[in-house]
């Protein structure tokens, strides 16, 4: 028998706190994507590079990011680096961990995207006198971003959900952190976390829909 009385009012009263927590989660997700995308471009290039060091570092990064738990990756940036005397604060450690994960996953997506662009595009650009970096930046990259746009927005949703790992490294300002604090004070676990789940759900939907809107505005061709 259900022997539990729901108390939604305290949870709803905490809504403003949780929403400002949600904003922090969203902020971490966005920043981790920006950083992740930048690294992913280099990793994707590294994976195709003939330079052994560049290839090796990129491959190791991608393999680690994709084949170990995200929780492990966040632990490493907080406790792992901590044991070498590099003590990042919870927010930065979480951001670094998720950015690391994003970069690894996106690198493989980008590599696929790059392969889909015919080599003749680069040749045409070079024949106009563009340098190799110019041809990459002006002709190849913009086309790649269109190809990988939807997988990228998936990763963004994933990044948002990964921010909930912050609670394991002591972050208490993001949505999960705020919710956990409320939970330990009141033990209204179900109500608070159900509300948090609804907020995560809405945020994720918001990301998916706004990326669709972005794509529609951005890719007219």
């Amino acid at each position, binding site marked *: 028998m259900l022997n539990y009385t729901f108390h939604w009012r305290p949870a709803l009263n905490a809504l403003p706190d949780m929403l400002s927590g949600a904003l922090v989660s969203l902020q971490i997700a966005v920043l981790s994507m920006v950083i992740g995308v930048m690294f992913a471009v280099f990793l994707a290039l590294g994976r195709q590079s003939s330079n052994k060091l560049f290839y090796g570092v990129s491959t190791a990064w991608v393999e680690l990011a994709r084949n170990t738990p995200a929780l492990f990756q966040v632990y490493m940036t907080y406790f792992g680096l901590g044991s070498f005397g590099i003590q990042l604060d919870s927010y930065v450690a979480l951001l670094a961990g998720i950015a690391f994960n994003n970069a690894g996953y996106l690198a493989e997506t980008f590599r696929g995207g790059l392969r889909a662009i015919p080599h*003749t*595009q680069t*040749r*045409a*650009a*070079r*024949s*106009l*006198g*563009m*340098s190799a970096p*110019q041809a990459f930046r*002006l*002709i190849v990259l*913009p*086309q790649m971003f*269109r190809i990988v746009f939807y997988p990228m927005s998936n990763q963004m949703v994933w990044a948002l959900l990964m921010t909930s790992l912050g609670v394991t490294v002591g972050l208490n300002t993001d949505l999960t952190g705020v919710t956990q604090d409320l939970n330990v004070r009141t033990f209204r676990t179900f109500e608070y976390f159900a509300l948090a789940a609804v907020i995560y759900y809405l945020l994720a939907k918001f990301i998916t829909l706004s990326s669709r809107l972005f794509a529609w505005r951005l*890719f*007219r*061709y």
Partner: protein
Amino acid sequence: MIELKDVRKSFGSLEVLKGVSLTVQKGEVLSVIGGSGSGKSTMLMCINGLEPIQGGQILVDGTDVHARGTDLNKLRQKIGIVFQQWNAFPHLTVLENVMLAPRKVLGKSKREAEEIAVRQLTHVGLGEKLKVYPSKLSGGQQQRMAIARALAMQPDYMLFDEVTSALDPQLVGEVLDTLKMLSEEGMTMILVTHEIRFARDVSDRVAFFHKGLIHEIGTPEQVIGNPQKPETIEFLKSVL
């Protein structure tokens, strides 16, 4: 002036150019004809350094294209090339396609680049299509856009690599008209083509390529009208 001296080019063990020598003077239109795989297109790629060579020398206005230390990006600014597959940049409008290199390579201002682009596009008959994306153009229009894009760099030489081969028959005419217009304006051109009648019409000289070598070169009347070598005679018989 473009000079090729005993140029040799291989892809792996396959030798595609087996010692090609050739001179193209300023203002001259040279057509290059010959069967598929005879090395015609490869020669064009070598002239602007898109492909390395294994032997010989290519000089453009006295600059050795394949020498160490040659600034290829600089050199390519004066050699325009248009490919069989027109290679429009799909993410840019027609106008942006043509403006991009003048802005980013020549460092022109936006206004200047736009002025050049509009002029060149109008010149090839695309003045009405400036804001359109390439995917909305026909093959012939995309090819003319590619020509305008190369011309916008104000090159001294233009190389055309079978620019009508990928087009539907009814679109070939508009591109050939554009080429003809350029030749009448005095542009120095090397034209790799399968359009023998057209080659005869616009060229100062015609070169016949066969198995990586120039077998005959001379005026259109000589090479197309009165070929001497059996390979040339056979080739012309098969295409005319």
